[in-house]
């Protein structure tokens, strides 16, 4: 039941064609060591679910530059010109999803819901191909759940059970992604013994976390 693995072992689990969710918001709360290990691997044709594609030299953006993705679902790609270039030139399929809808789709995927109705995107290009339902006179889009083979997330600390605690704005998409993948790998700054975390402070229960990568350096 030891959940600790190295970044290299985490990356080695991800096979060609897999779908991955990557936590973080403009590189805040992103699993950098796991991303670096993936960048060094030969893996390709991945599908990515993430809030944004970071920067060309930071966060998940490094993997975009390495052309690891066949498809990307994100709410914002404006900070990484390479994503836009690949999209424009047809090299990568890029799907823009409203941020709240993406977060809720991932939550629905992790929490066993078959979909949800949101007013976001009604009357816009986001509506295309989706069922519009009217509830109490207001229009909503039926949005479907999203799951992935892997969730690559980040937290401040973990205990050995995989319980995760956060600080500041690190949470963002990490908690919803934790539940929505077949295999969830959490990179953390430090792993502490069972009992060292207050159960009131845990944001992601260890039950949702399969593996932990510790980023603590010898510094």
């Amino acid at each position: 039941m030891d959940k600790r693995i190295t970044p290299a072992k985490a990356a080695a689990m991800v096979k060609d064609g897999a779908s991955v969710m990557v936590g973080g918001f403009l590189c805040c709360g992103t699993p950098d060591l796991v991303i670096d290990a993936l960048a060094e691997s030969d893996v390709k044709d991945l599908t990515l679910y993430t809030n944004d594609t970071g920067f060309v030299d930071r966060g998940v953006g490094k993997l975009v530059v390495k052309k690891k993705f066949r498809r990307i679902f994100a709410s914002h790609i404006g900070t990484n010109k390479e994503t836009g270039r690949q999209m424009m030139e047809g090299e990568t399929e890029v799907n823009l999803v409203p941020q709240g809808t993406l977060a809720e789709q991932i939550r629905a995927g992790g929490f066993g819901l078959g979909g949800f109705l949101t007013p976001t995107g009604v009357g816009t290009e986001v509506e295309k191909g989706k069922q519009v339902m009217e509830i109490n006179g207001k229009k909503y889009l039926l949005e479907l759940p999203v799951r992935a083979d892997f969730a690559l997330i980040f937290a401040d600390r973990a205990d050995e059970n995989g319980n995760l605690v956060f600080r500041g704005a690190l949470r963002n998409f990490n908690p919803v992604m934790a539940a929505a993948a077949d295999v969830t790998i959490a990179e953390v700054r430090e792993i502490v013994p069972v009992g060292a975390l207050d159960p009131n402070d845990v944001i992601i229960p260890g039950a949702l976390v399969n593996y932990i990568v510790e980023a603590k350096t010898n510094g």
Partner: protein
Amino acid sequence: MDKQQTQEFIAKRVARELKDGDIVNLGIGLPTLVANFVPENKKVFFQSENGFIGLGPTPEAGKEDPDIVNAGGACVTILPGGAFFDSATSFGIIRGGHVNVTVLGALQVDEKANIANYMIPGKMIPGMGGAMDLLSGAKMVIVAMEHTAKGNPKLMRQCSLPLTAVGAVDLIITEMGVIELKPEGFVLLEYNPEYTVEEIQAATDAPLHLSPNLKKMEV
């Protein structure tokens, strides 16, 4: 007014719309400046859609905390009495109408209160980020922008760019005036006395209805 003065003028006028106790989300760019002009006697809570309420000023150099960043990825602070949360909760708060005011920029707004601000097909596709959710969820939507772009009107009879939201805009504040969206279209509530009403109309694609209480714009 130079560009900076114009932007500050607009931001100052927007700040007057905020009420004591309001939860406010400010978009990137011009809207961010609004925080600098909230009067001392009003307590306004700024929400950062990446995951907190209580957004404070930029930290002093050397005191940045990389875990506390705003939705533009810049280091900020959290004020006493603030709270952190994840993206699903953040957009639940937004979509659920718990944000009193959102202030956003726009590429175009039309007289049906439609807004376009997330892409120019074939040119610029940054993505909608949280804008679609904010537009559908916030109780009041204020568009804060310069009245024209390179001399071309941005207040249109009909948006030509892909819409970010339908019928969502309540108020537009530019360097030329304050325009309310009503069933009849654009209603000029206030004008900047540096311009004549005719000049403002000339800079606007759609007809401007004059409010019976039309007055001079004060900041």
